[in-house]
């Protein structure tokens, strides 16, 4: 599931730490003006224009915990095909490499690929495909 030389982006949502494969991350951005999407689920707050790319903003705290987003200050633009998705996260942490991972645990969760054990704690490696599937199911 993880390969040597892969790098992961760590961020925090609802007090938990998550990780994304850097290859799935297109850009990290400040909060931008959002434009609401009619008849969209509540977790989709709207669309934003990130350097010319239109992306739907997924309120990740609400989507994960069904709680309103707190002090979210960053958007993580996900690499995708035609449509782009921006994850609303609370705090960006840092980028880690495979060497920083001491162990990888398997988890039974549609939204997670694995549990990365680090020196200063652990992080849930998000499954973007599963996330999108789950998001599509919510419509």
């Amino acid at each position, binding site marked *: 599931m993880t390969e040597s030389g892969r*790098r992961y982006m760590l961020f925090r949502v609802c007090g938990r730490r998550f990780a994304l494969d*850097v290859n799935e*991350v297109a850009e*990290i*951005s400040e909060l931008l003006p959002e434009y609401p999407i009619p008849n969209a689920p509540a977790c989709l707050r709207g669309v934003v224009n990130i350097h010319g790319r239109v992306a739907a903003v997924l309120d990740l705290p609400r989507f994960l915990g069904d709680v309103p987003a707190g002090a979210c200050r960053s958007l993580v633009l996900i690499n995708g095909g035609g449509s782009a998705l921006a994850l609303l996260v609370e705090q*960006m942490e*840092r980028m880690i490499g495979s060497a920083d991972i001491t162990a990888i645990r398997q988890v039974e969760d549609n939204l997670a690929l694995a549990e990365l054990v680090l020196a200063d704690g652990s992080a849930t490696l998000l499954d973007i495909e599963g996330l999108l599937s789950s998001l599509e199911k919510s419509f």
Partner: protein
Amino acid sequence: MYIPIGYKFILGILLVVAAVAFSPDMVIALGYSREMTSILAYAIALTTGLILGWFLSRRLSRNIGMITDSVEAISEGDLTREIEARSMRFPDETTEMAASINLMTESLRQLVSQIRTASGQVSDAVNTLSSSTLEMNATTEEVAKALEQISHGAENQAEMAGRSSVLIHELAVSVELVAKRAKESAQSARDTTSTAQQGTDLARQTMELMKEFLETVEYTGQQFAELNGKLQKVGKIADLIVEIARQTNMLALNASIEAVRAGEYGKGFAVVAEEVRKLADGTSSSAAEILDLVSLIKEDSVRVRDTFASSSRQINEGKKKLSSTAVAFQTIVHTVMETERKAESIADLSSMQIDSTQKVVKAIDEISKVAEDNAAATEEVSAATEEQSAAMQEMAIASRELAILASELLKTVERFRVPEEQFAYHD
């Protein structure tokens, strides 16, 4: 016609001699014999002599008998009788003697009556004197007791006067101590006045210092407010630094993403981006620490500001209280001056009291002396009263003896009987 008894005898003798001389001639004339004539003449002369003798001696014997009876009755104490001498044609010495005896009897009656009356009066007077003497004796004894009490009272008075003198002496000493203490109090009051004046000056100086301190505090507060404003600016700058660091971090992350995307060519750039991110992270941490420090400083400044405000309030309160203290000191000064004046007045009054006390001591000493004299005089009077009591007792004895004498006298004169109408005294 008064004819003494002797003349009557001479006249009778002359008549007998005349009868003897003239009877023979008369008998001769009768014609009897010589012898008969002689016998008749002698018989006539004898008869004449006997008749004259009987005539002359009858009255005389009767009067003398009456006188003798009267004198015997008088000698027996009977003074009731009187010689009732018959009236005589020719009174003689017996008539006068009877009258004299009657007069003597009357005089004796009056004397006995007077003696009886006087004896009764003496007896009554003696009884009265005896009772008076007894009363006087009782009164004298009461007087003696009263004098004894007076003497005892005088002794007590002298003793009390002595004690009073000692007490007054002690009082004088106490008053002297009071005067001394009053002077010391006046001196203390003066010292207190000076101290209170110094306290007033100190309070005024302290007020000025507190005013300066308050101004300093206010200035410090202003400076602190300025410092607080500057701290807020520091906080804003730190916020800005944090934001810049965050953005730098984000840029570093994006750079890292781009470096990863560049593959092998981007490794060096990734290292640089990571270093930048670390710097941004460190900057953010430092800025966060700055913010924490600013926050702590703000909290401290709030506390300091509150402390300053509290101190200002306390200082203002202190100023008010100090002002009240200054006023109180002024009041103390006035009060202590009044106290000083009163203490001096007490000292003056105490001095006057000392003089008065000394006079009282002198007067009490004189009273003590007078009381002692009174005690001595009372003892003398008591002795005199005892002598008087003894004299009264002697007088009572003499009265009883006098009463006995009066009784004996009365008993003696009771031997003489007098008519009741002449005994005028009745018990």
